[in-house]
């Protein structure tokens, strides 16, 4: 499976030549990774200290993106903010894949009453807009980036449960699984050897879109003042705090928003490419 992913990665790079539209997404993602890894070398200033007497300054040589409401360098905050974004992406992806696959497998492979109950719950949860689930979780747990991650995972989880369950049900009816069972293979072994590798593609595709959703949700919750706490350089929080100075200092809101948009756009664009490659059932997912 890893080999397959690697091959897809290589193909992706090769396809840049055929598809120039991929240049932007790939360079944005690379830039994001580089910024996150080398934030302290790239950022010209501190992201948490500022000069109150030099606040809301327009872009200049010293501050290419200007300064914010506390006189902090906006560029430096965006650079450090990439760490927040990546952290959110990675944790949300990990937890939703692992938990979602586990629950989905349980429902799909074991079946029976467990399946009925889980499917019913997932149906109900999916009828509630994801934003509301995230808001409810935040209301219970309180503010903070870690809680935001929990909120997003809980909002995303039903998608995975439903996806994995449906894949597993198809997969377990297949001949080779039946054959292994007949040969006396253990359930867990069947899952590991036969089922997981065959359903990994769609899950990876779904995970890409989860990455995009995670960035958007974190930004949205922070924008509502319910997510990251100051002075975390969360892009959404930066937008929230700059909102009131819109009229006199638009630059403070423009740049963090662009950062969110470019990141999400790039992830989505790559996700679509991946989907074309890995998931033959692309059409179904469009819903």
């Amino acid at each position, binding site marked *: 499976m890893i080999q397959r992913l690697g091959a897809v990665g290589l193909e992706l790079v090769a396809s840049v030549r055929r598809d120039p539209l991929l240049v932007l997404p790939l360079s944005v993602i690379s830039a994001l990774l580089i910024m996150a890894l080398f934030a302290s070398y790239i950022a010209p200033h501190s992201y948490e200290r500022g000069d109150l007497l030099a606040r809301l300054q327009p872009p200049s040589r010293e501050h290419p993106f200007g300064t914010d409401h506390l006189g902090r360098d906006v560029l430096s905050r965006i650079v450090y903010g990439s760490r927040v974004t990546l952290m959110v992406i990675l944790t949300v992806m990990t937890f939703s894949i692992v938990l979602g696959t586990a629950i989905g497998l349980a429902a799909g492979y074991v079946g029976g009453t467990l399946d009925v109950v889980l499917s019913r719950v997932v149906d109900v949860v999916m009828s509630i807009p994801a934003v509301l689930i995230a*808001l409810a979780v935040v209301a219970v747990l309180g503010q903070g980036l870690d809680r935001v991650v929990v909120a997003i995972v809980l909002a995303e989880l039903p998608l995975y449960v439903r996806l994995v369950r449906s894949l597993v049900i198809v997969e377990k009816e297949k001949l080779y699984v039946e054959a292994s069972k007949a040969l006396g293979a253990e359930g867990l072994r069947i899952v590991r050897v036969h089922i997981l590798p065959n359903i990994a593609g769609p899950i990876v595709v779904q995970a890409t879109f989860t990455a995009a959703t995670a960035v958007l949700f974190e930004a949205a919750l922070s924008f509502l003042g319910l997510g990251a706490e100051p002075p975390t350089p969360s892009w*959404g929080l930066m937008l929230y705090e700059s909102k009131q100075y819109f009229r006199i200092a638009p630059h403070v809101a423009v740049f963090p928003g662009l950062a969110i948009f470019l990141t999400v756009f790039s992830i989505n664009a790559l996700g679509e490419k991946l989907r074309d490659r890995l998931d033959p059932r692309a059409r179904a997912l*469009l819903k």
Partner: protein
Amino acid sequence: MSFLRYVFYRLLVAVPTVLIIISFAFFLAKLLPGDPITVMFGELQPPPEVRKALEEKLGLDKPIYVQLAAYVGRALQGDWGKSIHTGEPVTSLVARRFVATLELTLASIIISTLVGLLLAYISASRPNSAIDSLVRLISIGSYSIPVFWWGLMLILVFSVNLQLLPPGGKEGWRSLVLPSIALATVNLGMIARFSRAAMLEVYTQDFVTAARARGFAERLVMIRYVLRNALVPIVTLVGYRFGVLMGGAVITETVFNYPGMGKTIVDSIFARDYPVLLGSIMVISLTVVVVNLIVDILYAFLDPRVRVKA
């Protein structure tokens, strides 16, 4: 399965959904920080004997399943409690806000459907052309835009710079323009992508080929055969997007200070006004359930194949 039996079946399935949603609200209330009596009194905490009497009156001393049953019973009768801060019944407060959110949601559904269909029509007419790629790009862009930032940008251009429209609030239809455009922008991409696919699928079917073979003009074929036949799945998609849009409205409202459910929810989280929070979440969820139900039934009515699957 006959159509009526299908409708009956769907309604029956919706009953537990509604009950589960109300139970979710109940357990959410139990999970929220602060017990209801402390929250109710705020600044002035009552003496223990008053507290005890109140616990009995509110049934908080009973086993949890009895409380749950009582809560579901009250909720079904329309008693959702009162706002902690103003004493207004949640139902009347929520009902007022709900209309505003519905207006916003419907307005953006209309805009996004029209624009989305137009984009889909353009790209489906020339599949795999440059313009098709462009539409694809616009679509990905559409669902990648953070709606709150987009809202701010619209305010910046149309109300701060051009001074054409109000930046927020709710004063007449003018204040609905920017929020619904913002919300429509992030939704039209999905509609365009899906509609394009639906149109292309119809496009390859026999009767369309036959129509073209008969020498009808390409545009006539597109409109008369392709668009019309693709409408069923498109209407369904738009219906299912309703829930996503309501969620989006929650955030959009905050940007524009639009007094709907979204703003009510965010405000009530900050104010720890839990009855209002729970009432709002329940109303939105139940609305989505009802809309999905209607769409399911409508779809089944339009496309008999669905009933068999159920």
